[in-house]
């Protein structure tokens, strides 16, 4: 994939997506504080659970930060749309990069045992399996890191990645450059 | 309460209660008592002056040692190379679909017993049955003493 061209003068179209994760990465994104104002000057936030009210993923997105693993059918549909409409897909935080905490349900091997465990075995008194087809998305058998579902361009690990680490990725991308990530400040898990 | 295993004494003595006799002693113990129980393993550890974890670690390393009692009959599908190229994998899969445990038969596999000209073969209670199919194994197993 070609890097985003640095010569294009227009504002970059930036999106953030929240899949199976705790939203902590997005909280960390908000920790960018006053730099967010700078960001707003350099980029249009075209889709984001914390900065935009749009419901459908738009076309022609330049950069997208994806938080969370792929854990249910909604996640799966969305990540396919993201990949199809995004130039630079950033796997944002440990859940996206490793499946992390949502992935711990994979040890139970399958969606059914997870639901049984959560809603029946661990219920006080009378447990009941939720059933709302078409409303609540179905769990996938396993939670997968994003790159096991669609190709990923940049990995931004951390639980959550600190605001400065997020900036170290987004800033060069906005300039049309690939971020160079190494060392404990930039790629440590956890 | 320490249980006693007098039948184990000869093999312990043959190895002079030395640690290097452990596998020989475990082999003999399984022959005598069909499987290895925690009291039996504790007894062996004490007799050979070995830590419990060392005895357990060694016993669990080797395929042939077992920690639960065997079924009345054992049917082992050979999954060596020669048997594999002649369909051992599908034979094993087919047998796995049968309710053999309800007949008192334990199904397992063995990695080549070195009589490959009979491939695919199964070993039933130490008898080798050559050139088997799922049907022939099942009909043979039905003949076994229940």
């Amino acid at each position, binding site marked *: 994939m070609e890097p985003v061209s640095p010569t294009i003068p227009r504002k970059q179209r930036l999106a953030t997506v929240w899949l199976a994760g705790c939203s902590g990465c997005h909280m960390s994104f908000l920790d960018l504080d006053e730099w967010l104002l700078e960001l707003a000057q350099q980029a249009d936030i075209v889709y984001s659970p914390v900065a935009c009210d749009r419901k459908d993923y738009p076309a022609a997105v330049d950069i997208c930060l994806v938080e969370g693993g792929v854990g249910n059918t909604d996640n799966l549909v969305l990540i396919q749309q993201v990949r199809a409409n995004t130039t630079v897909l950033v796997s944002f935080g440990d859940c996206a990069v490793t499946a992390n905490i949502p992935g711990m349900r994979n040890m139970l091997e399958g969606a059914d045992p997870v639901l049984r465990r959560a809603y029946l075995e661990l219920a006080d008194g009378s447990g009941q399996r939720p059933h709302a087809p078409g409303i609540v998305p179905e769990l996938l058998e396993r939670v997968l890191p994003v790159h096991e579902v669609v190709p990923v361009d940049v990995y931004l690990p951390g639980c959550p990645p600190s605001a400065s680490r997020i900036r170290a990725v987004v800033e060069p991308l906005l300039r049309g450059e690939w971020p160079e990530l190494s060392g404990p400040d930039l790629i440590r898990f956890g | 309460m320490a249980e006693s295993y007098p039948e184990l004494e000869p093999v312990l003595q043959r190895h002079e209660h030395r640690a290097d006799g452990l*596998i020989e002693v475990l082999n003999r113990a399984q022959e005598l008592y069909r499987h290895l129980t925690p009291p039996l393993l504790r007894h062996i550890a004490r007799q050979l002056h070995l830590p419990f974890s060392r005895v357990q670690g060694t016993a669990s390393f080797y395929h042939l040692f077992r920690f639960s009692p065997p079924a009345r009959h054992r049917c082992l599908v050979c999954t060596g*190379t020669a048997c594999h190229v002649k369909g051992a994998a599908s034979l094993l899969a087919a047998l796995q679909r049968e309710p053999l445990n309800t007949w008192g038969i334990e199904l397992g596999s063995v990695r080549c017993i070195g009589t490959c000209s009979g491939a695919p073969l199964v070993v039933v209670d130490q008898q080798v049955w050559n050139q088997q199919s799922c049907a022939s194994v099942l009909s043979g197993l039905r003949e076994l003493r229940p």
Partner: protein
Amino acid sequence: MKACLRVCTAASCRSRGGASLQHSLSEAVARAGLEHGLRVKGVGCLGPCSDGPLLAMDADPKAQTQLYGSIPVADGAQLVASLMEAAAQHTLAHWCPAGGLRIDLNHPFFQLQRRLVLEHCGQIDPTSIEEALAAGAYRQLERVLQNNNPAAVIEQVRRSGLRGRGGAGYPTGLKWAAVAQMPGTEKVVVCNADEGDPGAFMDRTVLEGDPHTVLEGMAIAAHTVGASRGLIYVRAEYPLAIARLRTAIAAAQGHGWLGTAIAGSRCNFDVELRVGAGAYVCGEETALMQSIEGKRGMPRPRPPYPAERGVFGLPTLINNVETFANLPALLRLGLETYGRGTKVFSLTGHVRRSGVIEVPMGTSLRTVVETMGGGTPAGRSIKAVQTGGPSGGCVPAHQLDTPVDYESLQSLGTIMGSGGMVVMDDTTDMVDIARFFMAFSREESCGKCVPCRAGTVQLDNLLEQILDRRATPEDLEQLESLCRMVKDTSLCGLGQGAPRPVLSTLRHFRDDYLALVPVETRR
């Protein structure tokens, strides 16, 4: 009439009723009062296992030996009666047991063999040391003890070019010299009889058919390197070989060929049997030594080599069954006649005649598989021949003219290994074969080093993905690079060899992989 019926009672024929055949024949002979004219004895492997149960007949005077296969085992009396009738009518030369078949001993399967290791296998009763002695057992040991010149023996072994027959092919003479050089009198000779490669049964054949030749080889080695303690580590999956070894060791001790002051010399050497408990990795020498010491069979890095610090910390010579069994023949024949020696193979898979053969080193694979084994049955063509077990590779059909020797096989991306040879016809999916071996290595990995413990699992999963047509071209790349990584970084031969079946099939049968991986795969 004077004749001897040799019934194969080795494990393969035994599984087809060989032992009961021997029993019913002996009974029939006794009932007919023919013991003086007609002898029945059980022997080791007669060769073409696929035609078992096998029966050989040596009829006096000087009639050619006959070999019969597929003998119905039920009625020994009838067989003996028909045999006696044929003898009375002088039609023995054309006789064949009812329901059985006559096997042509002029077939290349027999004619192209050179039997040094297996010379007495199938001839003598392996439970009788008297028969072994009559066939020349322990004579080379006696000579070595009388000459008492270990350096000369080492020199002869070295010059013969004999290499370890267990798989790695290390020069035997060098190994012996290294142990001989070590100071001290407490040294150990270990015989590796943990023949674990699936589809390989050469060592089982030797141990079941002629155990004394192995004991003699060990004793010669012990005297030569200055060891007094011998250990044979044999896998538990070979109950008959274990029984034959126990009998042979006791008999050799009884006849003074093992024990103290062997044959009146100052040489003391005794052999103890250790039975494994199901762990393929114990065929690796450092794991085997751990297992002998009663521990988990986990390989350890070398150096120190066993020659410096082996079993119980003592200098140890460790060779496999076939290597030791070569010794008596080598010393008896001398360098010139011995030549390049032989290799024993077990021939199995999609081949008309399977069994155990011994051929001169350098015989081509085609000769072994097509001429001797008769090629594939039922009009299929050969796709590949697998050698070297889970650490080996596949030789494609168009390269069958490769001579069987260490270097030639290695240049094709496989190894000689211990001698298992599995023929695969054109119905075989080579990716499935690669997966079969990877699953084997995954199951048999001891778990000590990371690349083997975790790498074989990832490789096995990748191969499963490919077989299920769920893989991308990138997965194929990853398969190849992870294979190289596991090969380069694993601690012992099991892990280093585990990727070879994949790498070799990728090299020779890449189309089988590509057929399973769609060219344009978008995840």
